[in-house]
């Protein structure tokens, strides 16, 4: 497979996975969590680079430590998770900026999909398929949990388990997407396509479908456009998703 094909396929798969998960992030009012989580990946990448191991492993590890850490702190303190996220995630960005070796810094911050390998593609494909299979199984708990935790628990649904599975999936897609958009921009790839989808949707099914479609489209158009304008793909992909969001604003259902 040509390197361009690799890039395109990987980015589109990330767009699908990120869009789908982003749809639920928005419903759960966790829009900024995606953004903040992607920052946490930076020190993970830095440490991995210093130890000469795969940065993806470092990023995933850092993200998992972060979601467990926030869950523990939420229980032990009365600080709202917003505050916790605001504190620790910017701290980790600062730490990451210091630790990351200079030559890799720009790539870590903004991503560089031209460096994607065949193994990355396989890993991405497997992860995205897993997301597409697992999320429908926990959709009921994810959505009902927003409406009433008591009701959800009374149906025997374990909200904490579902939350953890969900955040774990988000971590995986963010870690994978770092190649595409970097630690600074990956959060927007989770949120913007889903936000655009929400403008168009009355039902959960159309909402998820549009979110995946917009994620895929942003990557596809973004990569072609980045070649055309001669700029690195990450920011272009994010800008394309922003343009899609602006267009969908005009199609919001009238009864809103």
């Amino acid at each position, binding site marked *: 497979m040509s390197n361009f094909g690799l890039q395109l396929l990987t980015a589109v798969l990330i767009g699908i996975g990120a869009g789908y998960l982003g749809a639920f992030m928005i*419903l759960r009012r966790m829009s900024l969590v995606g953004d903040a989580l992607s920052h946490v990946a930076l020190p993970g990448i830095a440490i991995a680079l210093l130890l000469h191991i795969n940065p993806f492993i470092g990023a995933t590890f850092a993200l998992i430590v972060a979601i467990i850490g926030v869950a523990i702190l939420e229980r032990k303190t009365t600080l709202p998770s917003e505050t916790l996220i605001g504190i620790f995630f910017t701290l980790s960005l600062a730490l990451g900026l210091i630790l990351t070796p200079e030559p890799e810094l720009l790539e870590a911050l903004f991503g560089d999909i031209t460096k994607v390998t065949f193994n990355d593609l396989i890993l991405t494909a497997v992860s995205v398929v897993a997301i597409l299979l697992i999320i429908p199984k926990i959709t009921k708990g994810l959505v009902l949990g927003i409406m009433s935790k*008591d009701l959800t628990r*009374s149906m025997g649904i374990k909200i904490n388990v579902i939350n953890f599975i969900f955040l774990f999936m988000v971590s995986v897609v963010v870690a994978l997407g770092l190649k595409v958009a970097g630690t600074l921009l990956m959060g927007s790839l989770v949120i913007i396509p889903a936000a655009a989808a929400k403008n168009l949707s009355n*039902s959960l099914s159309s909402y998820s479908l549009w979110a995946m479609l917009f994620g895929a489209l942003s990557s596809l158009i973004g990569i072609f456009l980045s070649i055309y304008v001669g700029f690195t793909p990450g920011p272009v992909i994010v800008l394309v998703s922003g343009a899609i969001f602006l267009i969908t604003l005009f199609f919001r259902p009238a009864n809103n």
Partner: protein
Amino acid sequence: MHNLNVTIDGNKILNDLNFFVKKGDVLAIVGPNGAGKSVLFRTLLGLFPYSGSIVWGQGLKTNYIPQKFYIDKDLPLTVKEFLEFKNNNLNTIVRSLISVGISDDSHDGHAEHYIREHLLPHRLSLLSGGQLQRVLIAWSVIDNPDILLFDEPTSGIDVGGEETIYNLIEKLRVERNMTVLLISHDLNIVYRYANNVICLNKKMICFGQPNLVLDPTALSQLYGGTVGFYKHEHSHE
């Protein structure tokens, strides 16, 4: 016939409650704000740790409608998708919605058409308070529960609509031979619909038939002051 015996000690929210419910009963729970009514429900549902014993009959299905139900105005979720969380069969969904009396005033006698074509594809968040309550009730009876727990079934509904909701609950109870436990602040409702009532203010102040146990002594103990028989709940805090 099944008996339920609850004893909850400690944690100062509920002290030494003892009561039972018989099949087909309507048990109302009344008390001022913060009396522990919702806590009692959550405990009955097994969501709170407790000491003492709660004994239900064998194999009984309990469904619950909470008081607080958050639905964002722009939540992309249709009525159909919401009900499908509980049951995947479209005909069962439609039957359940018909049984809660959902219809469109302008299409009298065409409830099924209205439900299939208009209500089911509608966004849940855009329903009126009364319609949402009916959909919630339809959701709660769709899997034929033996026991229903309603926490303030009519909060968020205008006064005229309240009575229809209680009539509906009563109709469903008779049709489906369900046991209903409901939290209410409206003593009129308790007199009209409940066989038994628990007056709760951290501890049990009374338990029994409403017309026997809801006397002025119990009420003043409950609400702390002189409360007329036909007044709504007051809290003097």
